[in-house]
């Protein structure tokens, strides 16, 4: 079987000798978005970092187009996979263009000097994320929404086959969340990139994912398309929400809001 895209096969992930999550099997095709859901501490970030090659897998196998990730060098991996983490670092006086240029790191020589082609790719990435007008502005002086788009531009300037994003919408208000996910979808389709995204906002995840992977208690709790998850009614359980006692516990309005987010019941 020739498999395109990115696959996790019976993957276990954790830190040191502590297994955080195990038995994960999932795949993402080029152009698709897979979203990881789960409570805080369910292992979303751990799984994502392991998938990105930043943590050593504690078992199982990772495949990129039939090549084992463990057989790729760090440099090869960097050319195929781009990571957008939630760590916030002080970029000092770096301009937005300089941030995006960092995406060309795997392709430049010893001293990191960009070629004509590199500059062109950076400019294209900024066009595609609608950030070209920010090129000469300090990265520290733009809004959170703009900042995430710049970081997305940096990721696509890396020309990866796989994009891994750890809670990319966490600091964004709802409008920028929607804008960001829409942009991510468009870019993944156009450039045939596979994306794996961890997320907290259930409603947003259901609206923007091709597939979802729900993690709970160290294993995969449920997986499938948004439609399948809605129909199975498993989402409240993922977050430990009792559907029988929604009204007494949260009040009518919040109970309605939760039902809508989880896509269960009528209005």
């Amino acid at each position: 079987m020739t498999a395109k895209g990115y696959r996790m096969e019976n993957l276990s992930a954790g830190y040191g000798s502590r297994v955080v999550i195990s038995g994960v099997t999932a795949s993402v095709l080029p152009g698709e978005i897979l979203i990881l859901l789960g409570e805080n501490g369910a292992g979303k970030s751990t799984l994502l970092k392991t998938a990105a090659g930043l943590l050593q897998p504690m078992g199982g196998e990772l495949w990129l187009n039939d090549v084992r990730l463990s057989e790729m060098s760090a440099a090869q991996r960097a050319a195929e996979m781009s990571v957008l983490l939630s760590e916030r670092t002080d970029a000092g006086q770096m301009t937005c263009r300089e941030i995006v240029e960092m995406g060309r790191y795997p392709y430049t020589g010893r001293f990191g000097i960009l070629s004509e082609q590199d500059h062109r790719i950076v400019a294209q990435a900024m066009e595609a994320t609608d950030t070209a007008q920010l090129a000469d502005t300090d990265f520290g002086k733009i809004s959170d929404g703009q900042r995430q788009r710049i970081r997305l531009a940096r990721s696509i300037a890396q020309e990866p086959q796989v994009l891994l994003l750890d809670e990319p919408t966490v600091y964004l208000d709802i409008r920028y969340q929607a804008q960001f996910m829409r942009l991510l979808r468009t870019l993944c389709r156009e450039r045939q990139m596979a994306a794996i995204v961890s997320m907290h906002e259930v409603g947003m995840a259901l609206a923007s994912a091709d597939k979802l992977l729900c993690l709970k208690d160290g294993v995969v709790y449920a997986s499938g398309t948004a439609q399948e998850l809605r129909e199975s009614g498993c989402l409240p359980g993922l977050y430990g929400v009792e559907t029988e006692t929604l009204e007494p516990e949260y009040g009518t309005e919040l109970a309605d809001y939760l039902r809508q987010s989880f896509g269960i019941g009528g209005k």
Partner: protein
Amino acid sequence: MRESRSTSQSNKRWAAALICLALLCPALVFLSICIGSTGISAGDVIAILTGHGGEEAAVSIIMRIRFPRAVAAMVLGGALGLSGYLLQTFFRNPIAGPFVLGISSGAKLCVAILLIVFAMRTGIPGSISMIGAAFFGALLSMGFVLLISARMRGKPTLIVAGIMIGYICSAATDFLVTFADDAQIVSLHNWSKGSFSGMDWGDVRVMSLLTVLCFAGILLLAKPISAYRLGEEYARSLGVDVFRLQVLLVLYSSLLAACVTAYAGPVSFVGIAVPQLIRALLRTERPQLLIPACFLGGGIFCLVSDLIARSIFSPAELSISSVTAVFGAPVVIIILLRRKGAV
């Protein structure tokens, strides 16, 4: 500071700044050679430097004392600027430097021990063993700082720990100096206060070689440093061997700080202030530019400070650290004030 700046503007700014720094260095070396307690005219200095002779005493003062001293101030200043830049990069802390982190003091203590042990037996040790002892002391202090910073993730604790280590080492050095009674101790005492005096060409050759080698090695790290600036995990995702980079940052910064301490004793504030001043001047974070600029900037800072230290109350000399502190400490205060507004 302006909101945005175009690429061509930045390129011009960088070129102009680097050229100015590069020209200022030799100009200040020349000025340092001209100025001193014995009056020698600039014309005579040029004649002596170009080998057209002059009075024997003047030739000796220029070629044996002032010229090597000026070159030493430039090279060691550059080493401090680089060392500070690497430490600020490594700790992601704008007020890190070899002096505040106790690295210079650790180096000083080990050199003092070496001097006293040797002075009691055979006489003054060679410069290589001085650098070796200083490097050992620098790494020892660095080891303590790393241990503490690994246990407590927080910027203030790091600097406080460094300052405490610095005080302990300085106290131990004073203790040794007080109880060792030997003719060498007078010079040991002067050295432990910090000065660029008494350099000969042999010293200058060794320190220049060491500093230039480190400089070349650091330039090769410019690319990974640029990625490391944006986060450890991000750098790893780009294929950077972060552990190797960190080890090299520690080794180079300690070696450079050790080299300075072995020859000139502890010199404060240059390591913190220079990278900050250079950043403000170039308005960039690109290591490819900051590395050479910090080297040149450190050289200029120390040349000016040394000139002031030996000429302001001539023929008496101030310790170099009193001068560098006067210029460097305000820079640190400005950084702290600015930070508060930025966060």
